[in-house]
């Protein structure tokens, strides 16, 4: 679909910010970076629904709010449905002539917990019904707000408090749920994966999603320096490396057509990415090292599959 792909940061920086400072997100939290990139990339009036989680808690502690746009929090699992209800109300009220049509866009923010686990049914239902909502998953790969518990997005081998690395168990056993694929299988018009390290790609994707006449889904890797255990300054570097190792490929599915947006010139070994994060530290012990090879093998396999799907082979 045709959207403005030209991005002039100075121009974007001249517009008022829709996301106010003073929120309680941790220093260096990718969610703050991502929300700013998203809201600075689009000009349409937005209404935002957010699931319970870091972003919601940090930005809406009564009587403070970081939102300079209409915003609603309902419960943990139902952000998509809340937005769907608001979208339906908008349609009804405009149709009845009770409010003017200002081309309002409905955005949803949900963490991986809300998206992959507890809220999957609600998103699936909203997508099946074809609501014009843009669902953004802020994937920090665990239930971070409650203190780093595993979700089905948590990568294999990661230490979380409910999938801890111990003497005999090396962190999370299961592979992460292929949520982007699952959303694409709903046959909604726009699905994508993005990373704030590649902000131009992310912003274009958000513009496309918002312009979609139907449901759209973007899964964005949202580094958590607390839960992933690294210095606050390396958030973007870790995100970038996730893309360069093909751990977090950047691709989109537009009307069922898979397209790869970025192919690393030199595919880096996953070990480099694992090394940067304390949550994988135990994997470097001799008894667990074999897991790194298994993880690499699986990443390679998924990457090959993606290349094929995107017609890159």
């Amino acid at each position, binding site marked *: 679909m045709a959207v403005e792909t030209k991005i002039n940061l100075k121009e974007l*920086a001249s517009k008022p910010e829709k996301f106010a400072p003073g929120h309680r997100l*941790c220093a260096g939290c990718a969610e703050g970076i991502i929300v700013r990139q998203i809201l600075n990339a689009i000009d349409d009036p937005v209404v935002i629904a957010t699931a319970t989680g870091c972003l919601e808690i940090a930005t809406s502690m009564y009587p403070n709010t*970081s939102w300079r746009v209409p915003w609603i929090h309902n419960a943990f699992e139902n952000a998509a449905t809340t937005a769907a209800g608001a979208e339906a109300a908008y349609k009804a009220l405009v149709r009845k002539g009770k409010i003017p049509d200002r081309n309002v866009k409905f955005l949803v923010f949900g963490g991986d917990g809300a998206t992959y686990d507890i809220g999957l049914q609600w998103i699936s239902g909203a997508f099946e019904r074809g609501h014009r909502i843009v669902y953004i998953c802020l994937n920090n790969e665990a239930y971070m707000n409650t203190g780093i518990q595993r979700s089905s997005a948590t990568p294999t081998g990661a230490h979380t408090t409910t999938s801890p690395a111990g003497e005999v168990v090396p962190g999370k056993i299961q592979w992460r749920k292929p949520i982007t694929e699952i959303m694409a299988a709903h046959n909604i018009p726009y699905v994508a994966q993005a990373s704030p390290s590649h902000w131009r790609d992310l912003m274009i994707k958000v513009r496309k999603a918002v312009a979609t006449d139907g449901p759209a889904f973007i899964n964005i890797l949202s580094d958590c320096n607390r839960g992933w255990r690294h210095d606050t*300054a390396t958030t973007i570097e870790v995100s970038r490396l996730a893309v360069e190792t093909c751990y977090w490929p950047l691709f989109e599915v537009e009307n069922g057509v898979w397209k790869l947006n970025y192919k690393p010139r030199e595919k880096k070994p996953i070990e480099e990415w694992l090394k940067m994060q304390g949550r994988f530290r135990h994997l470097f012990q001799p008894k667990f090292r074999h897991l790194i090879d298994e993880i690499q093998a699986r990443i390679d396999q998924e990457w090959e599959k993606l290349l094929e799907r995107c017609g890159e082979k």
Partner: protein
Amino acid sequence: MAELKGWKELPIGATVLEPGSSAEYITGTWRSQRPVRDEEKCTHCMICWVYCPDSAVIVKDGKVVGFDYDHCKGCGICAHECPVKVEAHAVTGKPGKVIQMVGEV
């Protein structure tokens, strides 16, 4: 505590009527280090602006003019991602990037 409103005065339903009211909350006290910029060498590429989680890079007329120290949490992403190298930073004197982190007093 004396300033908090009673139940009769608060808007119903815990609805917050003032957009962006979190700006009055100072998060600048969180940090243990702060970013400083070599103003002359800065190319105003806006990379620090696009990567700041706290809208703490102040931009006016297409130029970075400073940092919002009321809200900057000192994460250091701006310094880490700044693409412009300097040999002697105007503030710290050290080689590195245009933005460098210095310890909070």
